[in-house]
């Protein structure tokens, strides 16, 4: 059994193209998990080890996070490689949920970009202590000090350099360790040979100055260090301990630097991971006690305690379903029986493996704090496993609702079968990816968090399942809502042969400020018998599935009933459901319904010279420019733009700015559409209806 103090579960998160996949690759190389290095877009055609999916290799981006394991200085490190594109943030969020610490990778030229801000916000949400690694110091224009300033200004992190680069751009040779006050050079063909010397004279003054800043920041977390500083002799251990304490409390972010591509600074960064990032026992995780109305309970990472593990990722591999688990407490052995807390199903642990990207290593036992994978376990992402003695569930994860959908059609019968298999797998793997069959058009609809998100799944269907599909135009998920109170008093009466139907429902619908739907029963005197109150609720819920404007679901509505009538013989559950449906439709039309559309928070980054043109393009897309942040010759424009106007924006932006600007977007809110758009949508919906 491993010593938990020597376990690190870390994530590597950052902006796309800041080189985190290359960094992970180098980590694996220096920890001797692999014996040669490949590039992400390598000339050798092999690709980086962590980009296990074919598609990722082709596009040079990381989509699904792969878990891997390595050893450094007697410590076991589990690494989750996380995607950099915002469309895949559910992957990032899932990874953060099971991690104890993270390395925030930044490009020394690009610095803190919009995706880094999103990732940082997520890390703060899950209270993940982090160290920063400024990568690509070998690139022209590298400026680590500027990146540190940005970490402070843009991410509000107490970022403090604990290293200084020796040379920059093409002259990058190594780093100065400000804790030990040594110069470290990475030599040999792959930077394997570490040479430690005194700090070069030309860097001495800068190193002294930066060390002072570092000590001042670290001493805030250790009285012992502060006293030692006054006496003039702080020891290495004292400084390390203070930095560690600051990092664990999320009040300090130590900054390291180097170049993964040039094999500089990786070994020292790994030292940083073991020295400053938390062990599983340093972090308090919480579970929900299902027997105590989901009360939060702290999990003690006791390896002898009852088992508690979370399935945070599913993958369909060559040998069947692979379930990635994080064990929070207890141990799990091959042959053990474990219980899925959601379904109550008992499962035998068959093959237990430790993952190294798409290769694996069989193990017999996994302890608290471990990240492992199981074969052939039927479960969904987010399921909790116990040994059966606990009825706990790990805290539920924040899952955003999909905002965009596509109709897909298999090209032939064979593709139809493969597509069903693929969709069933993807929906299990990714909670933000949903699919259903439109009953009216008989089309299969997939929905997700963005154009690229869906595009990747369509590609995966083709590559992994040989399911070729025709793709329709992307559709925005519109909603309908009401803007004022609308009264109703509706009688449902049917007496044409057989048993009659009778029910009268009176009341009103009104806008609901928060939440999707609310039903309020204000019936006094039993004008609607108690047994039919639930029927009214059911009827309203059925009615709100399709609004009368464009057939979109109705949200933010409160239905209040205050009067009605029943018949001793003809009233029934069905009759009152029908009456409620009719009542809702009556009230809905009086309540000034409007169409709402998803509005995206868009951040465009690029050289200042394009600011005017970018703002113009946002304006043309019915967007509202919230503001601009200008720094040197770089500007970030923040805006809110309807999703329906953002299709094809990346191509437009690229051509307008000669590829120098980029943008990210995430869902912000639903807002009503302008009158002209509303009229157009209604006309289109009418035309569609007539066609059918």
């Amino acid at each position, binding site marked *: 059994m491993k010593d938990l103090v020597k376990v690190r579960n870390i994530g590597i998160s950052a902006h796309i193209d800041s080189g985190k996949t290359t960094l992970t690759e180098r980590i694996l190389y220096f920890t001797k998990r692999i014996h040669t290095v490949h590039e992400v877009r390598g000339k050798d055609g092999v690709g980086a080890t962590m980009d296990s999916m074919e598609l990722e290799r082709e596009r040079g981006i990381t989509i699904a996070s792969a878990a891997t394991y390595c050893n450094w200085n007697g410590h076991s490190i589990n690494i989750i490689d996380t995607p950099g594109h915002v469309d895949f943030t559910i992957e990032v969020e899932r990874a953060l949920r099971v991690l104890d610490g993270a390395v925030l990778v930044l490009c020394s030229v690009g610095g803190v970009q919009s995706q880094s801000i999103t990732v940082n916000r997520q890390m703060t949400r899950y209270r993940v202590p982090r160290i920063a690694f400024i990568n690509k110091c070998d690139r022209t224009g590298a400026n680590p000090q500027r990146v540190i300033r940005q970490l402070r200004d843009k991410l509000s992190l107490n970022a403090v350099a604990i290293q200084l680069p020796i040379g920059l751009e093409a002259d990058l040779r190594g780093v100065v360790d400000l804790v030990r006050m040594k110069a470290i050079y990475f030599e040999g063909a792959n930077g394997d040979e570490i040479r430690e010397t005194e700090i070069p004279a030309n860097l001495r003054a800068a190193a002294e100055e930066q060390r002072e800043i570092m000590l001042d920041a670290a001493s805030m977390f250790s009285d012992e260090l502060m006293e030692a500083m006054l006496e003039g002799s702080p020891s290495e251990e004292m400084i390390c301990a203070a930095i560690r304490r600051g990092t664990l409390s999320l009040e300090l972010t130590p900054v390291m630097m180097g170049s993964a591509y040039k094999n500089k600074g990786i070994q020292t960064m790994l030292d940083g991971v073991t020295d400053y990032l938390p062990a599983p026992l340093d972090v308090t995780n919480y579970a929900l006690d299902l027997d105590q109305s989901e009360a939060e309970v702290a999990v003690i990472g006791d390896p002898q305690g009852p088992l508690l593990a979370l399935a945070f990722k599913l993958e369909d591999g060559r040998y069947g379903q692979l379930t990635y688990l994080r064990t929070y407490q207890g141990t799990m052995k091959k042959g053990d029986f474990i219980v899925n807390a959601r379904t109550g199903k008992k499962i035998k642990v068959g093959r237990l493996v430790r993952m190294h990207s798409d290769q694996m290593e069989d193990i017999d036992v996994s302890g608290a704090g471990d990240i492992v994978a199981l074969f052939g376990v039927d479960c969904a992402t987010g399921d909790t496993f116990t040994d059966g003695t606990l009825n706990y569930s790990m805290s539920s994860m924040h899952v955003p609702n999909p905002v965009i959908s596509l109709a897909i059609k298999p090209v032939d019968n064979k593709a139809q079968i493969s597509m069903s298999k693929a969709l069933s797998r993807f929906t299990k793997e990714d909670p933000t990816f949903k699919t259903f069959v439109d009953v009216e058009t008989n089309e299969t609809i997939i929905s997700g968090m963005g154009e690229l998100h869906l595009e990747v799944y369509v590609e995966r269907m083709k590559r992994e399942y040989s399911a070729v599909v025709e793709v329709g135009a992307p559709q925005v998920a519109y909603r309908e809502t009401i803007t004022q109170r609308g009264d109703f008093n509706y009688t449902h009466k049917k007496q044409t042969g057989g048993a009659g139907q009778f029910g009268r429902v009176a009341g009103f619908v009104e806008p609901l400020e928060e939440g999707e739907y609310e039903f309020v029963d204000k019936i006094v005197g039993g004008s609607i018998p108690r047994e039919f109150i639930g029927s009214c609720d059911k009827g309203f819920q059925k009615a709100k599935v399709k609004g009368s404007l464009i057939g979109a679901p109705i949200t933010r509505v409160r239905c209040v009933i205050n009067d009605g009538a029943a018949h001793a013989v003809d009233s029934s559950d069905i009759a009152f459901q029908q009456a409620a449906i009719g009542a809702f439709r009556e009230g809905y039309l009086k309540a000034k319904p409007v169409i709402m559309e998803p509005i995206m928070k868009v951040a465009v980054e690029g050289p200042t010279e394009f600011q*005017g043109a970018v703002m113009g393009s946002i304006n043309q897309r019915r967007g509202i420019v919230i*503001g601009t*942040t*200008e720094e040197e010759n770089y500007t970030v424009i923040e805006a809110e733009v309807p999703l329906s106007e953002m299709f094809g924006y990346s191509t437009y932006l690229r051509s307008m700015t000669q590829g120098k600007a980029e943008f990210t977007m995430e869902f912000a809110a639903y807002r009503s559409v302008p009158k002209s758009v509303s009229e157009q949508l209604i006309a289109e919906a009418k035309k569609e209806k007539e066609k059918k």
Partner: protein
Amino acid sequence: MSKQELIAKNPIRQLNFGVESASGSRMGLVMARAGLGKTAMLVQIALDSLLNGRQVVHVGIGQSLEKTRIWYDDIFKDIVAGCKICNPYAIYDEIMRNRMIMTFKATAFTRSRLEERLNDLVYQNVIRPGCIVVDGYDFTVVAPETLSDLRELAQVMDVQIWFSAISHRGDERTSPEGVPAPCHEVADFFDTVVLLQPDVESAWVDLKIIKDNTGGASDRLQLDPITFMVKEGL
């Protein structure tokens, strides 16, 4: 309460150059020691302009966009909390469409850069400001020529520009009208200068108008020290 009533009841009306006196460019200055509510005051002036249908550019120097945005959200909430206004969300939506926040690093802010940005906004039809508020401008290093330039810019664009400036307890220098340092030597460039001073008796912040060439502002105004909202004098 309707939007018109909200405008009429807003005490800041006495200070802000309203629609009726909107013709021509103006320059205003809000001065106070740190933490007394200069930003809140500027945001209230901006909101009053927005409610009056004028577009606003908020220039934040050395401040983050998000923080500035939160100021607007909070102050608007405080304004509507005090009165039963119909459909505040629609009004806020309209306000958002007509407001634009620009943040600059202290070193990056110059008159020419501001003019360039404003021209961009007008040219791209994003916004044509009637009021600009500049928060965080460092008056300790400003040269009179720069303010003369900015005044000229206000005239060319026909806008009113409001600035905030920090005064310091230890610096006793003042202009003949009583405008404290560091703005005592550039007071002539401003049509209105307001000084925020804590009132020892009530713990409120007094809004002292030490210079006003516009003929408004007769009543005593104060700032609530908790919400930083401008109220009629107690």
